[in-house]
């Protein structure tokens, strides 16, 4: 892998981050809505202090958050802050910074995304490969169709249906929240851990069922193409066993484009996870975002969006750079 390729991809990544942060910087400022004033108007309506002080408070907060400086200076401060992973303070939970809020909730989102993505990717690709493999038993090949049909349903809708059937009708799993009321949060207690896992099953299932169809469909398409390749035919004529051909000649080659597809789908997957989290009230980034939207906590909204954007773009570039390790035919030189 040449240095030039790496440098050009990193430059591209920088460009993406710059574009994203510029958009998140300018859009709120174009809209002329002063987030701090908005926030305090909300507070005055619920009572607490007199509207007369409002202007003074807003002015002092503008100074505190640097909103009284000229626009170009705000822009430079903002951008240099992002590079240092400093996104300022939360308006709603003031002493806490946006980054602290993100870091507290990040492990939840990562675990949920990691588990669901791996299950969905592995299961979906195996299913798709089997569906296109002519020697597989027909009942097994037919199993793929229902998963493809589920593809049109976004995970959020899937969540509503799962909540209705599994949690509301059958009462097998809880309806929401992080853990049952009355439980004491204690990670060394296995009963508590199991309770938390039980609350995560439905959101995870919604995400898996919502994404698995895409992998099945993509892999089935790839599988059909690969079967006609000469090397698969040659392997058959050499007398290799069916399973060896399936595993080493067929699956491995068909899987390669799916890795690229994975990098491309990442943005959508993360978005879905964020929305599903906010819907189930799970303590992840989605919930932070949902709460921030409902309470007009603008710095947090912008911070979370920017953080996720940068994370997704970075992973995409990393996958692209690691791709030659999987496919020896492609060398970056």
């Amino acid at each position: 892998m040449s240095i030039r390729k790496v440098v050009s991809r990193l430059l591209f990544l920088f460009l993406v981050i710059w574009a994203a942060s510029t958009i998140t910087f300018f859009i709120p400022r174009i809209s002329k809505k002063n987030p701090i004033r908005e926030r305090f108007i909300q507070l005055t309506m619920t009572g607490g202090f007199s509207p007369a002080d409002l202007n003074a408070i807003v002015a002092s907060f503008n100074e505190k958050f640097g909103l009284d400086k000229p626009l170009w200076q705000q822009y430079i401060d903002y951008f240099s802050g992002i590079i240092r992973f400093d996104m300022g303070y939360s308006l709603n939970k003031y002493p806490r910074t946006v980054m602290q809020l993100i870091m507290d909730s990040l492990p939840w989102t990562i675990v949920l995304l990691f588990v669901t993505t791996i299950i969905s990717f592995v299961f979906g690709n195996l299913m798709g490969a089997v569906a296109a493999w002519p020697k597989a038993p027909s009942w097994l090949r037919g199993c793929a169709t229902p998963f493809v049909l589920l593809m049109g349903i976004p995970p959020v809708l899937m969540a509503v249906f799962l909540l209705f059937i599994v949690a509301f009708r059958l009462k097998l799993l809880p309806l929401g929240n992080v853990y049952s009321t009355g439980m004491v949060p204690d990670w060394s207690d296995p009963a508590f851990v199991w309770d938390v896992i039980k609350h995560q099953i439905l959101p995870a299932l919604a995400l898996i069922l919502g994404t698995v169809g895409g992998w099945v469909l993509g892999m089935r398409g790839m599988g059909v193409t690969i079967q006609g390749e000469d090397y698969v035919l040659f392997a058959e004529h050499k007398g290799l066993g069916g399973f060896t051909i399936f595993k080493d000649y067929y699956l491995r080659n068909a899987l390669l484009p799916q890795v690229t597809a994975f990098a491309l789908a990442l943005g959508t997957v993360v978005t879905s996870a964020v929305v599903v989290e906010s819907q189930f009230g799970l303590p992840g980034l989605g919930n932070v975002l949902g709460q921030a939207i409902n309470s007009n906590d603008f710095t947090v909204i912008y911070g979370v969006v920017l953080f996720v954007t940068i994370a997704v773009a970075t992973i995409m570039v990393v996958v692209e750079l690691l791709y030659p390790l999987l496919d020896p035919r492609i060398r970056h030189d």
Partner: protein
Amino acid sequence: MTTLAATQPEIFRPSRTILVLRYLRRNKSLAIGLFILFGLTVFTIVGMATINWGDAYPLSVRGRQPPSVEFPFGTDFFGRDLLAAMVVGLWQTALIGVLAGGVSIIIAIILGFTAAYFGGWVDSGIKGVCQVLTPIPVFLIQVIIAGSLDKRSVTIYTMAFIVILLAWMGPTLVIRSQVLTMKERQFVMVAKLSGVGDLNIIFKEIMPNLLPFIVAAFVTAVFSAVFASFYLAVLGLGPLREPLMGNIIWAAQSQSAFFNGWWWWPLEPAIALMLILGSLALINMGLDELSNPRVRRTE
């Protein structure tokens, strides 16, 4: 002499409708998709003609009623008749989808054709902007835009506008690559050598050949527009008073509808939206088959 004419084998020419119906019998996903979409359209039109639009808004009927004879779909916590809400919501979803999908496809056609046909720095510019914007999760930027607006002033049209702002990059890249391959075809070369002007080549030579493709791209764009506006609404960023599917689900979740046993409240918009998105996905799959002769099934 008349007997001679009668003995001639009669060629049976099926009418156009019969041919279309026969094709639909082969292309199941297109048929089912169109059928569902037709059903939804009939439901919306009949509903709009019979129900009272006002019932779709809060505080118009008695709240929290389960489905009954009086309210076939039940009512929600805020006093909406959910049957009316579904009808108006379907109409508004269709409006957002067609408006946002249509406008973003028009932008994509203009940019894609310009980039591919003229090439050079115009192409690198348009391609570059699309490529830099593509890795950014579009939805999150939409969250920022929607979040920056005053919640009271968000309307159906604002939603459509937000969706359009970031929905044109994907179709632009797709149409661009299609035009690029089309440009090298011989009939375009012949037209060019015969001295046909650029605009004539674009509109008379390339465009008609890309039409099935553009229709498929339009259906995809409508699908993503409905999807995007639903996600925004489900996070509470939609026009809160309007009975959009996402709004109703968001409201139901925020009032813990399942905890309180009001199962019909979130379930009905979810089913309606599933039917919309499902039918669009099926139509898209069917169109793919129609425009791609390799997988097209013959009788």
